[in-house]
């Protein structure tokens, strides 16, 4: 047994944590089981969800869960991550002994060695427990449940494909892929010809989706490997600065920070922005095809199809629009005169009232102030003084009103 605390053990812990995170992420996306009563192709979703395919789950119908339930589940997931990490740390410390006293150069060399292994591990597709990378088992589960396919035939079919012991590759046409394509391109015959071709098409679209999913997963694996590199760099920086991590919690925060930093870089990259819509579109194309098959089955059962329902919804929507339009026209007819002109007047009046009242108050204040001035001065020319004050107030009111009109003009003009 390897007693070096910095050997694969460290890389294993890291990779386990990343895998756990990925699985929890999938579980979050699969917050509900599909509603079998609504979706006759439940088998398809279930089998895909069993394969921990987060994309498929994200596009499937969800059930609402209470925030307490969601929080409890999420907390348990986070706690598991934390505990896994803690266990890894304990194991490492258990083996560490005096090797923790190694120089920076010694342990960074060990880390780098493991990072190389780690990178290979995450980018070679060796981690077969990432079910997204194992399309054959997912397809085997799925096809066994497809109505209309003979289960014996499918078992034989999948058995033959399994014997070839290869997975569809990222590029080129692998043996399994060729086997699938050849079989699926066979023309249909007889009474079920159309149905058979639709099923073949569904499988072909499923294969396309799986291939894109593998590409997507490869990019995310690179992101995980990059996160490990960031983690290594931070450890080295800390050692050089004489800093250290003293709690498991801080260690977890650092793991999250590194993973987020790497993820942010990945999702902003051109390759992610190319693969992400391609994956979504591949999945939707498959779903759309399955929906048309569902409609065929519903029609065969003399049940309303999605197509028919949509047609009814569209007609209702159009009718509602027409009714709303008529209601609007009726409402406008009941309005008096030119509403724009009327609104402009209301604006002016509103401003005029406030401003003229203020002006009047000011004038009255001035008037009362001047009234208590020395009686001799007030008695000298009372009539003339009063007249001047009133005139000033009146002219101020006019000026304010004119100003108010000017201020509102652009708004009312545009409104017209």
């Amino acid at each position, binding site marked *: 047994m390897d007693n070096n605390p910095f050997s694969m053990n460290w890389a294993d812990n890291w990779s386990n944590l990343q895998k756990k*995170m990925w699985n929890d*992420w999938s579980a*979050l*996306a699969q*917050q509900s089981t599909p509603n079998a009563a609504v979706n006759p192709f439940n088998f398809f979703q279930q089998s895909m969800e069993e394969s921990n395919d987060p994309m498929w789950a*994200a596009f499937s119908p*969800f059930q609402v869960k*209470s*925030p*307490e339930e*969601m*929080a*409890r589940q*999420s*907390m348990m*997931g*986070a706690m598991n*991550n*934390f*505990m896994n990490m*803690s266990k890894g740390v*304990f194991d*490492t*410390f258990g083996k*560490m002994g005096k090797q*923790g006293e*190694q120089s*920076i150069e010694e*342990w960074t060399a060990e880390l780098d060695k493991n990072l190389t292994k780690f990178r290979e591990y995450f980018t070679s597709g060796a981690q077969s427990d990432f079910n997204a990378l194992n399309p054959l088992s997912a397809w085997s589960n799925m096809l066994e449940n497809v109505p209309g396919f003979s289960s014996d035939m499918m078992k034989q079919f999948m058995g033959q494909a399994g014997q070839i012991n290869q997975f569809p590759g990222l590029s080129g046409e692998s043996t399994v892929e060729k086997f699938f394509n050849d079989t699926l391109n066979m023309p249909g015959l007889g009474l079920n010809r159309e149905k058979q071709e639709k099923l073949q098409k569904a499988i072909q679209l499923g294969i396309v989706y799986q291939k894109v999913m593998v590409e997507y997963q490869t990019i995310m694996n690179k992101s995980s490997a990059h996160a490990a590199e960031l983690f290594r760099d931070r*450890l080295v920086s*800390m050692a050089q600065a004489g*800093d250290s*991590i*003293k*709690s*498991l*919690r801080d*260690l977890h925060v650092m*793991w*999250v920070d590194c993973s*987020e930093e790497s*993820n942010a870089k990945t999702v*902003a990259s051109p390759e992610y*922005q*190319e693969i*992400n*819509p391609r994956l979504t*579109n591949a999945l*939707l194309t498959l*779903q759309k095809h399955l*929906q048309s098959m569902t409609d065929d089955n519903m029609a065969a059962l003399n049940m309303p199809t999605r197509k028919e329902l*949509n047609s009814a919804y*569209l007609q209702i*929507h159009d009718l509602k629009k027409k009714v709303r339009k008529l209601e609007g026209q009726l409402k406008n007819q009941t309005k008096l005169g030119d*509403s724009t002109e009327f*609104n402009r007047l*209301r604006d002016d009046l509103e401003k005029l009232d406030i401003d003229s009242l203020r002006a009047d108050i000011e004038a009255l204040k001035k008037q009362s102030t001047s009234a208590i001035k020395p009686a001799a001065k007030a008695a000298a020319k009372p009539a003339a003084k009063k007249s001047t004050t009133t005139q000033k107030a009146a002219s101020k009111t006019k000026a304010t009103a004119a100003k108010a009109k000017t201020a509102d003009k*652009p*708004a009312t003009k*545009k409104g017209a």
Partner: protein
Amino acid sequence: MFPLNMQPEALVDELSNFNKKIISGMKTMSEVGDISEGVSARTEVYTDDKVTLYHYAPLKKDVHRVPVLIVYALVNRPYMADIQEDRSLVRGLLQEGVDVYLIDWGYPDASDRYMDLDDYINGYIDRCVDFICDTHDLYRINLLGICQGGSFSTCYAALHPEKVRNLVLTVTPIDFKTPDNTLSCWAQDMDVDLMVDTMGNIPGDLLNFTFLSMNPFRLTSQKYLDMVELLDNGTKLRNFLRMEKWIFDSPDQAGEAFRQFIKNFFQGNKLIKGGLVIGDKEVDLKNITMPILNVYATKDHLVPPSATKALKGRTSSEDYSEVAFKGGHIGIFVSGRALAEVPPAIGSWLKERG
């Protein structure tokens, strides 16, 4: 020396405390009770299909004469603006003497899949505005748009400028193609026709999944680990769960409206480039003449400031102001600092403009 300097005794203590908190926390979780949707007193004053217009009870005697209509995004529930007593934009505005109305879009179902932007903007928003105008004997009111609701409010103000006295926007995308807009980058090559034709309405959870994808480790792992620290405090836990409920309480998106929004706004960027037609009218930002207050968050990862600030100079308004808040997209509504800054800023800005 290797920088993991953890003493075994300290680690045992840490894990032991962690476990204790979880065990006692499970009891607190089971006793937490119902999680409320909004805290301020309000009355349902108007309904239109699944849409409900709420009027909030004033908190001040002197209420501002012209009411404000809050228009929220379709993707989340509007109670984010009133999530708890000490974290409520609505309450902050009420305390400023603002008369507040709010549109609740409800939960669209399959029968709503053909609802488009015309239905939302020239339909529901317009009828709510008319209702408020009739109630208050006004012909125009103030609009306060939040996020996507801000984009809708901007469109409404351009299409019906005579009905909007002042326009307040918060964390509102205007330019949908700024380079720092990750969501926009993801949306560019998405086949939205295929998506809507296949799914009809777009599940709210799918959009949540997309939002979580931006910070998957922090939002699905670290957040819940941090929650453990709150488990022994019923109030804090309830506040956390309120937020949790809000985040995942996402209505489905009406298919046609989603299609139009992605195509015209995210992919076509037509709000600023031109050519955006809603109903039978083109949305021309130059039609916007009323005063505008544009509030944005400097650390917004969903609607970057560059996307919001793009409005400046694109309208005919001679009275344009911006308020920058140092926080994120959600923080602007729930952080204590935001609520000390943002509602008073909006309240005084509105009062100054009648």
